[in-house]
């Protein structure tokens, strides 16, 4: 299934970002299905690689997953293995990722923007996500104990028909 993802908000100080995801060609829906998602950036100060906090298994995203699930999913990203040993030791708390050319995140879709919950899609789970700083590509794996495991998300940055990259800006007062 084809998807379009837009990042709309970003608060690096709190390790937060958000945006919308638009699922195209959804079998049971007449129109593209848009969801709003929020993300936790694994920056080792606000959030670690362990989805649960301080031994608990529930995040601010309201999701439960075990440490074993975390490691299993992160390991599926080729950019993760260099970090594995430190992550196994302490969730990666002592890692400095500020110069690492990949950003690891968890994304959780919070609600459907334009359709009802009977559209045939589920947003019960969340995504383990890896963003490549060099080419802007995004890869992810969906986690939901009630869905088939390791469903993939593969996104590439688009140019909207332009010969190059264009950026808008907004600034909240």
């Amino acid at each position, binding site marked *: 299934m084809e998807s379009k993802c837009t990042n709309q908000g970003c608060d690096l100080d709190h390790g937060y970002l958000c945006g*919308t995801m638009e699922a195209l060609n959804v079998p049971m829906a007449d129109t593209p299905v848009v969801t709003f998602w929020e993300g936790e950036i694994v920056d080792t100060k606000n959030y670690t690689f362990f989805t649960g906090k301080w031994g608990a298994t529930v995040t601010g995203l309201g999701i439960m997953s075990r440490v074993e699930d975390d490691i299993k999913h992160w390991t599926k990203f080729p950019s993760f293995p260099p970090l594995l040993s430190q992550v196994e030791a302490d969730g990666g708390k002592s890692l400095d990722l500020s110069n690492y050319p990949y950003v690891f995140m968890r994304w959780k879709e919070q*609600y459907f923007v334009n359709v009802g919950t009977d559209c045939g899609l589920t947003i019960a789970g969340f995504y383990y996500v890896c963003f490549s700083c*060099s080419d802007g590509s995004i890869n992810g794996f969906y986690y939901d104990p009630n869905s088939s495991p390791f469903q993939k998300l593969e996104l590439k940055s688009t140019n*909207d028909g332009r*010969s*190059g990259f*264009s950026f808008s*800006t*907004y600034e909240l*007062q």
Partner: protein
Amino acid sequence: MPTSANSNHPSRPEDLIGRLNSAHTPYEAKLKALRDLKNQIIGNRTKKLVFLKLGAVPSVVSILSSAAAPQDGGGGNREFHESVLIQSAAAIGSFACGLDEGVKAVLDAGAFPLLMSLISHLNEKVVDAGARSLKLIYQSKLAPKYDFLQVKNMEFLLSLLNSKNEKVTSLGASIITHSCQTAAEQQALSGAGVIKRLVCLLGGSINQKDASLESLAAMVKGNPEVASKFMGPENGRALGVVIELMKDKYPRTRLLASMCLISIRNTSTSYLQDLGIKSALVLVLLELLDDPGQVGDEAPFVLSGLVTEKEDMQKIAFDANVINKFCEHLTAGSFQTKRLQGIFLALSDLCSKLECCRDRLLDLQVLNIVTEALAHDSAEVRAAACIFFKNVSRSVKNLSAGQFMNEAIAVPLVQLLCDSRTSVQYLSSLFWIFRYGYAIEHYNAVTIYLAVGISRLMKNEVAALGAISNVVVNFMARKSVFMECGGVKQLVQLTKSMESAIRVNAVWALKNLVFHLSNRCKEEILLELTSTTLVSLINDPEASVQEQALGLIRNLVDGTLNSIDCVFGEDGELLHAIGRKMRRSTSKVEVQIQGMYALSNVASGNELHKEAVMNQLLPQAVDDKETLLVKFLQSSDSRLRTATLWAIINLTYPSSPNTCHRVNKLWNAGIVSQLKNMVNDPCLDVKLRAWTAVGQLMMYGDAST
């Protein structure tokens, strides 16, 4: 028929004034008239205004002046004169109590020096009356500023503080609260040993405690040295005493003790940082909110002072359910204006940084109450409601949900702009008429009032613009709601304001509105704004306006390809203006960053667009001076280096027909060697973009060899 002297009905104001002014009125009757007047106006604002209009104050002051003059004879005569002093001083104090018009009338009539002369009177009751009235005057901003730096003034102040008379010591403390503003004044007072005396007064009567707490807060505010002296051993357990006063049985004392501690806390991070005291302050202020009087009105303002700009305090307040309590008050019923303003400002501060606070606020569904307040009679409440919206709409999650972009909010916000603009223009016109059209003796007072009025209106305008800047970011497709309310027309007009604060906020709001906006709406905005205005904004005298204008253009040219042509049209005047701004060496880095992103966005277009940008960045006549591109690539600001790299990436985008030609130019201008130096830049973003740019340039090889 004359009213009997023993009648229980209050005399008509005109009759009273007549008796006070008449030279034929016997002294006893004048004294009775004074008492009568005083009794009518105490606690009665309406009566005070009536008597003010009839000129009561000059009449009373004249009587005070006569009675204060050296008297012949003693005994009963002296006693009588002292009664006149007491009653006239009391009446003057009542006129000044809580009424700026009254304070002004009292000062204009010359009462101040007369009241001061009463402080040294032999009769304690006269001293009390004089001190009380002076204290009431000093509660107003209009009271004359006391110059602590004059030696004799400091001596007089110390004599007040050291007096055995409770009202006189309270007066001394009130003078400090009113007039101590600068660090020099704080140091002078501290150096004169005032802190020690004020600390002693903390153990005195209620009035002395309260007056002392307020003046200590004024003395330590923003002055770590004075704060440190207060905390020093020479003042014993002063801090402990103030902390204890947070539990005093009188609400006003608890409020003032909290204010004093907050003043110390905000002055220096060394003090009062433990969780216990932080939580205690929150809980005391929360409880004081229940006070139905002035203390409850002021409590939200004091809480604002505690939490503003402090995320940790906002979290503590959140955990203590402060937001819920404030919202309960809001939904409970209507309030005095001041309390409503205070609650809105406190809620604004509470949700300024934390999403959990904004979430809680929105869950409690008070938006409709705040929305109604956008049309409140009071300008202060309207401004506070705007600030509330500005802060609560920092929630990107709720902007995404389109929470704030609806007619209920957009219409009153746009109306505020319209009303403010009309009023500011009207007052500005009056200001200039008075400046040039009236005699100088009228000019000062009138123009000061007008200037204050304009300033207040501008603050409200800026508050409305701040709220609009945020709510228009709204990510859903309904930004057109704002446009349909006439918002664009108002914003465009405000970009031409004489005040830079208004211009910058108006352009900022337009920039945010245009973020990810549809082409159709962008075209409507351009029609209203025009290229000429955009050029003039790029060349605005204020760098902050230039920066916002270039950000606006950046957004206008983002999106689909045809948006570039819509903005730049055929003559390219706007593009030239941006290029000139970039080449100007005095431009600030923030201006350069936005300018480069605007050019970079254009450079992501077709061949014509790329060539046009190339001509701005590398003009034909290249001399051996350092080019703009190299200068920017070498900037110490990584954001400018990044923006410039994006422009180069777009100019050398592989799939474009004429890329080879542009690559040659860049090689010849020494850009490639500069880029190669950047592949190990300490900033990750710069490093990665430099790699991309080098990769693209190397695809075409070194054309010069």
